[in-house]
């Protein structure tokens, strides 16, 4: 059965003033005032994301100041948005054979999928907790090693979280 549609000209005069409806709506608002709040005063009140959160990808920096990355380019290969560009080179330091001479992530292309972190054989690239990314130009959105390298201690939580799933 098709429900009969109520049109504006079907309403009587009192209904047409909408007074009852206005009070219905206001009563809902009034009731909600006393309930628990779900919103937050961002940016004054910061949010600490859970450890499973995928913020911007960063490179793990070892104590000696170098990156863990060996420039295998698996992250660049797996990246569905082709955000990562790496140029490998040879190194004779720290028992590594190769290192990334250039490691750049285009943060405008990055879709925060975390595939790079998942594929990395060295636990060298991880998703951080940072989500506040602002750029004023396209070039500024390309993060080089200077912005990507984060000391290992600061990423300890994430590294331990990942180890549960290895």
């Amino acid at each position, binding site marked *: 059965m098709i429900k009969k549609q109520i049109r504006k000209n079907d309403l009587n005069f009192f209904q047409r003033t909408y007074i009852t409806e206005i009070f219905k709506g206001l009563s809902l608002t009034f009731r909600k005032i006393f309930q628990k709040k779900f919103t937050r005063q961002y940016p004054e009140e910061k949010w600490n994301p859970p450890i499973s959160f995928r913020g911007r990808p960063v490179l793990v920096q070892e104590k000696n100041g170098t990156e863990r990355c*060996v420039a295998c380019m698996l992250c660049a290969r797996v990246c569905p948005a*082709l955000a990562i*560009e790496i140029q490998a*080179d*040879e190194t004779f330091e720290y028992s590594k054979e190769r290192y990334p001479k250039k490691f750049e992530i285009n943060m405008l292309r990055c879709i925060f999928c975390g595939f790079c972190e998942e594929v990395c054989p060295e636990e060298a690239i991880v998703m951080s907790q940072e989500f506040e990314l602002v750029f004023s130009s396209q070039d500024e959105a390309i993060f080089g090693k200077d912005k990507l390298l984060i000391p290992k201690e600061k990423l300890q939580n994430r590294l331990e979280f990942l180890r549960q799933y290895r």
Partner: protein
Amino acid sequence: MNVSITIDGKKIDCDFSKTVIQVAQENGTSIPHFCWHPSLSVSGNCRMCLVDVGMPKRNREGQIEVDANGNPITQFMPKLAIACSTQVADGMVVETKSDKIINAREAVMEFILINHPLDCPICDEAGECKLQDYAYKHSVGESRFEFEKVQKPKRVAIGKNVMLDNERCIMCSRCIRFCDEIVKEPSLVFSERGDNVTLTTFPGTSLDNSYSMNTIDLCPVGALTSKDFRFKARVWDMSFTDSICVGCSRGCNTTVGVRNNEILRLTPRLNENVNSYWMCDDGRLNTFEFVNKNRIKQPMIKRDGKFSECEWDEAISKTISELKRFSPSEILVIGSPFATNEDNFLLKKFAKQVLKTENICFFNHIVEGNKDELLILEDKTPNSFALKEFGFGNGNNFLQMISEKKIRAVYLLEDNIATDETIVNLLSNVDFIVTHSPNLNATTQIASVVFSSSTYAEKNGTLTNFEGRVQRIRPSVATLEHDRALDGFAMSRLDQFGAHNDRWTKGEKRDARSSWKIILNVANGFGAKWKYNTAEDVFKEICLNVKSFENMSYAKISNKGLLLKKMEMYV
């Protein structure tokens, strides 16, 4: 003598001198292998090509026994045999896909992988590694070996172009056999025994023959890698285009590896008629740097002794107005054995029909003594055969005319002729020199107008090698006249998905043109009204006008080249 064998139930007639792996490969059944190589002797040490081999069962009288249905009963050998060293015999039955064989392959793979390091992420071979491919196809994916892997020397420079990682070596001995049998300069050897087997050079020697880098292509794993290409790029980020080496007149078939519009490496491509699987180190390392570096990015005109870059139209009109000052007999047109057939043919047509000069020549570049038995030839140009075919004279005959000041203008195609002082001094007698050149060199220094021309890696065309084989070159590096997608270039992943603001699409594009196109523009500036849209159009005209090119076409040349008609009888 022909024999009949059965591979996986398929009856095949073949020559009795062949081995099972050869017959299988020729008939579309690929048998996995590491140490076997079509051009090398059989070593039979990797055991990857195990197959089940049987013969029809015979009774005591020597008659073939049959089952209830009348089909002959096959009696298989008690153990699996390696296909690479098993010669075919009449009635032989070969199984390559049964469970028994799959189990055996998995066991062999597990055995080979016992001491193979998990180096793939830092190994240059990854992506084109036989062991990696087979680990996916023929392996169970895990190892039962729970002890420490054997440690061996890594990062050993065993030659000036080759890097050795002994841990990765699977002891297939292809490189050793290559040096012994193909180059005939034995320099590699296995030392130690068991799982300590190590590839080394003989004491006090190194892998320095002129073909050493072929061992890199031969190596089925990443044990031997190129020092030049080391860590430059991943193979899956590059595009690969079939081309021809321009290092000498052999015309070795090559594959050009390009990333971000820059050539990163050349590798040989199989052509049994020319270079088989090989190419020399010299050709591999020294024929792409001039494409990437030291380029002329725009046409240039010399004003008051200094070059200034200009537009194409300006350079062309300047050339035309200058050339018109001279009578035809005062103009010398010099072809180039480095340029394609198309370029030189059109140059000759331009000289004959537009400039109406008879002074047409080219200079040979022969390095005497620089040759060997295998590939390297004395003639260091890829296309001198065609120039003789087109009727270009010997350049040295015209030097006299230049010194007598009978020649006052020179139109020169991509060639650096001012290599010694006598020729530089001679050319100072000439009033006007126009040259096409991809690179800055001594000749462009003394020219008045320089057209920036494309290199072999940026144009379509054909080259004719020393025995008269016409072979195709294709563009792999884009110039401003190209669009990778629209012009049918080989495209890497990055080329396909890169946007204008991605850094990997920003490889330098030069404003260079194919020489035949420049000649076409100059000729039309003289009022010639020629109509060629592609290099293929020019080639069609060559086929109509030059007898030995008759009935040729780009389609017929394809990837393997085509011999000139008059040369067919000699080969």
